[in-house]
């Protein structure tokens, strides 16, 4: 309970702005007793990223802060309890539950609701709005059975909703807009036209200048009827026709409200009752409702200042916005529409790639006033800064939208030249100066650390690229060098350690620890050093088995229950009938579950550790060798059938896949490597999803690198085209060794490239043009690894000392783990659930 005399601030509405107000007030003062009423059943969540709820985020992921946060900060929270009445003379609010709560100050943060136009039929089933998590649940449930759907409204939110329909699998998705173009309030006519083309390419059908006269259907929507007599048949409709400020409570209490809705406030965010404030989407300031979160946060800041006798005022806000999530970059900033004679416009349009950019500059050519970006909004942050900070324009302002012509890189240039006051994160009002200071004074050198320091980037997230550039720019200015150390035992990055171990010819983990580490090592640095040693010398890993991750230690992947799997190599997916029979026989003998893997080979599961050497002995006798399915090394080179059989095949992809797989097999790398070779552009081997992939062309082969399936799929990028086999192998040798030497532990090639300054252009320069002059070394180092290849299983099978390690009990080598259990499944065995 708050001490006597502590003023009580009651907040009505626990939405984004209501929450932010609490957070901001608590950061400045604890001299208030905070009571919050929220009508929704859950605590405030991030409405801006609401659509991500369809993309797999949970309601919990979206919370602004967990319920515990309110508790920890002594806030009294009433959820699912709307305030129904304000008694201004008694200074109390009355909630639906019957609760009467006195206040000293009242903050109305009731937000807005979706505006539903008065079209006959809006009450029908299948007509929904897009505002709360509950709305989204309803849409999701409905979309599951809908074949077609429409969104009423082609504005910012409408397009986001339309994209969501597509993502939810509603194949036939429409956007219906009353105006003759999309996003009429943010972008100009030419920009709208370009946007429309791009959205149509995504599969959205756009209907402009359509006035909806009624919604058809028996109890449940089946069609939209328009003023021009046309009809659109749809199973569902999402209305996104604008917002309606929720001023009903204020109106009832006799506070002044605007003609078209909104609680009237002055620059101090006070309503016509000076003890009552209104903030966020319910507030009407100078005739404006701000439907964005950043101005709402600024309003919250103003009220905090007023409560603490400060002098901050709200003076309007820039409505610049960048649209997210719809698969097309769209941004507008400053004044997008201003035209002659008040400004001159420069327009760049590329219908082929769907890019439209317009900037409006002052008549004297000195300042940027605003603009529109469609198809490529990378320059948005920098342009917005240029407008907001009145930065003088360069002599050729067209450079702002055309970039440094001819060059691929030059990202982030210029951020360091912004003034310290430049507002970088407008959601959280964080300036460039605050970000740079957090780097120098508080050591915030990552975006996550920055978020903790000053919340930059925690709102809409649009400023994150700029925050990153500022962090790196500040570090570079300090002469700092950013490094990732392995763990508490090695104060070196993987890249540094690989050089140290190479130069000093170090070949064992113990020697590495003695020379360059401290303590006794751990499960992080042991396998990392093991990988480095293999990448340098490619010596038999089982000779240092105690530093290997468990799969490498037993040369097999461990399964639930402690059994292991056996995967012989089948280069290129090719296998002879004799080999198939041998596998069948051996799997049967040792009672193994067999399955064709996603990598075009056969996996045998459920082997006892003590059977492994026996199984391999038999496999080797049949001509098989290790498939390295357990190693951070080349897995498979997938191939399509290619020109030997396929009527489209340009070259023999199988033979090339086998050649590549055999060349690189067994080589240890920072993470596993996968590859594919396709015989033509139909790409049946999915080469572009691989760490390196090869596709046959009329003239030779195209080489793609740094693709990834797995958790974060990413397409590979073209490194070189129409090259012959020899050149391709040469580039691959260099690529592989460069990756081995410079990636962090457990970093796949895709992430490696994503983190590489200059990206694919830089990598191409290193590999193809030898810009670092290291290619001869890379090739020689890789040749050494290839020459040192050995089938690890053959070595074990033939070496009694090594074989001895494959037992469950040292003192009962023949006994199997009695706790290991299997269950039956479709005539084979499976491991028992944990």
């Amino acid at each position, binding site marked *: 309970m708050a001490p006597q005399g502590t003023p009580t601030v009651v907040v009505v509405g626990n939405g984004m702005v209501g929450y932010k107000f609490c957070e901001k007030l608590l950061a400045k003062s604890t001299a208030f007793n905070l009571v919050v009423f929220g009508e929704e059943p859950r605590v405030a969540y991030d409405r801006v990223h609401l659509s991500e709820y369809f993309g797999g985020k949970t309601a919990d992921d979206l919370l602004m802060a967990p319920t515990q946060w309110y508790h920890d900060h002594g806030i009294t929270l009433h959820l699912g309890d709307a305030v129904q009445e304000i008694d201004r003379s008694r200074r109390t609010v009355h909630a639906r539950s019957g609760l009467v709560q006195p206040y000293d100050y009242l903050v109305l943060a009731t937000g807005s609701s979706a505006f539903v136009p008065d079209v006959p039929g809006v009450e029908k089933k299948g007509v929904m709005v897009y505002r709360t998590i509950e709305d989204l649940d309803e849409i999701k449930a409905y979309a599951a059975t809908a074949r077609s759907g429409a969104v009423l409204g082609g504005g910012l939110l409408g397009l986001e909703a339309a994209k969501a329909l597509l993502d939810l699998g509603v194949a036939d998705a429409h956007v219906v807009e009353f105006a003759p173009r999309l996003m009429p309030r943010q972008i100009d006519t030419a920009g709208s036209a370009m946007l429309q083309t791009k959205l149509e390419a995504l599969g959205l059908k756009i209907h402009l200048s359509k006035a909806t006269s009624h919604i058809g259907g028996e109890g449940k929507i089946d069609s939209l009827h328009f003023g021009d007599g046309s009809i659109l048949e749809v199973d569902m409709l999402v209305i996104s026709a604008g917002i309606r400020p929720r001023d009903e409570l204020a109106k009832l209490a006799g506070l002044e409200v605007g003609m078209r809705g909104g609680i009237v406030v002055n620059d101090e965010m006070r309503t016509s009752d000076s003890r009552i404030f209104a903030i966020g989407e319910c507030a009407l300031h100078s005739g404006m409702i701000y439907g964005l979160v950043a101005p709402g946060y600024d309003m919250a800041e103003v009220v905090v200042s007023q409560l603490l006798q400060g002098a901050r005022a709200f003076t309007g806000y820039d409505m610049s916005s960048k649209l997210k999530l719809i698969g097309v970059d769209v941004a507008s900033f400053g004044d997008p529409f201003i035209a002659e004679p008040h400004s001159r416009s420069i327009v760049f349009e590329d219908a082929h790639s769907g890019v439209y950019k317009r900037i409006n500059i002052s008549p004297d050519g000195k300042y940027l006033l605003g603009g529109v970006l469609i198809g490529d909004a990378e320059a948005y942050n920098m342009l917005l800064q240029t407008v907001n900070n009145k930065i003088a324009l360069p002599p050729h302002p067209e450079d702002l939208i055309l970039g440094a012509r001819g060059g691929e890189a030059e990202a982030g240039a210029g951020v360091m030249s912004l003034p310290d006051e430049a507002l970088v994160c407008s959601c959280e009002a964080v300036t460039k100066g605050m970000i740079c200071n957090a780097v120098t004074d508080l050591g915030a050198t990552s975006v996550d650390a920055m978020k903790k320091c000053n919340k930059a980037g925690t709102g809409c997230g649009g400023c994150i690229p700029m925050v990153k550039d500022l962090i790196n720019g500040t570090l570079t200015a300090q002469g700092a060098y950013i490094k990732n150390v392995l763990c*508490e035992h090695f104060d070196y990055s993987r890249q540094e350690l690989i050089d140290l171990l190479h130069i000093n010819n170090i070949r064992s983990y113990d020697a590495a620890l003695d020379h360059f580490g401290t303590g006794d090592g751990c*499960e992080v640095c042991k396998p990392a050093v093991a990988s480095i040693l293999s990448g340098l010398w490619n010596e038999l890993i089982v000779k240092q088995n*105690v530093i290997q991750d468990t799969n490498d230690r037993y040369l097999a992947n461990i399964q639930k229950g402690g059994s292991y799997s056996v995967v012989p190599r089948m280069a290129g997916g090719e296998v002879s009938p004799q080999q198939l029979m041998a596998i069948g026989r051996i799997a049967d003998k040792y009672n193994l579950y067999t399955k064709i893997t996603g990598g075009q080979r056969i996996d045998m599961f459920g082997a006892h550790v003590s059977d492994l050497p026996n199984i391999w002995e038999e496999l080797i006798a049949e001509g098989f060798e290790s498939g390295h399915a357990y190693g951070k090394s080349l897995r498979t080179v997938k191939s399509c059938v290619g020109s030997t059989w396929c009527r489209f095949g340009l070259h023999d992809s199988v033979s090339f896949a086998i050649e590549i797989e055999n060349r690189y097999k067994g080589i240890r790398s920072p993470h596993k490597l996968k590859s594919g070779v396709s015989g033509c552009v139909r790409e049946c081997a999915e080469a572009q999803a691989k760490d390196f992939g090869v596709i046959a062309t009329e003239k030779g082969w195209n080489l793609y690198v740094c693709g990834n399936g797995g958790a974060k799929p990413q397409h590979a990028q073209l490194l070189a085209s129409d090259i012959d086999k020899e050149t391709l192998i040469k580039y691959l040798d260099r690529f592989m060794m460069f990756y081995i030497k410079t990636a962090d532990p457990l970093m796949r090639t895709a992430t490696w490239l994503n983190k590489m300054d200059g990206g694919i252009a830089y990598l191409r320069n290193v590999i193809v043009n030898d810009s670092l002059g290291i290619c001869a070394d890379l090739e020689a180092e890789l040749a050494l690894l290839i020459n040192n290849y050995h089938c690890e299983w053959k070595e074990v099978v033939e070496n009694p000392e090594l074989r001895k390690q494959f037992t469950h*009990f*040292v003192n009962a080598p023949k006994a199997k783990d009695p706790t290991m259990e299997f269950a039956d499944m479709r005539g084979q065995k499976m491991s028992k659930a*944990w």
Partner: protein
Amino acid sequence: METLTEVTWLPVCQAADIPADGGACALVEGEQVAIFNFARRGEWYATQNLCPHKQQMILARGMIGSTGEACEPKVACPYHKRTFSLLTGECLNADECSIQTYPIKVEDDVVYIGWA
């Protein structure tokens, strides 16, 4: 308060059976015991073989190492990398329950486990 229980020293295996800086599992009176040869420090440890996280008979195949200023010796479970102190059996990086540790000694190249 500490109680000292009389233990019986059971010979289990040869010292050379346990890889240096690694571990192996031994069957002791019907129980699975993980034995670790921390050669780098010249120390020996013994714990239960069962990882309490998913009830897997596996700890002997885990990687050993140390952590913190005091270089607390530990073992990491191969499955999900829960780590346990070799001194106390306490789980160091999660809320798993502690594992049992056993007295161990090596005499004349024979490993003995102290059985209560």
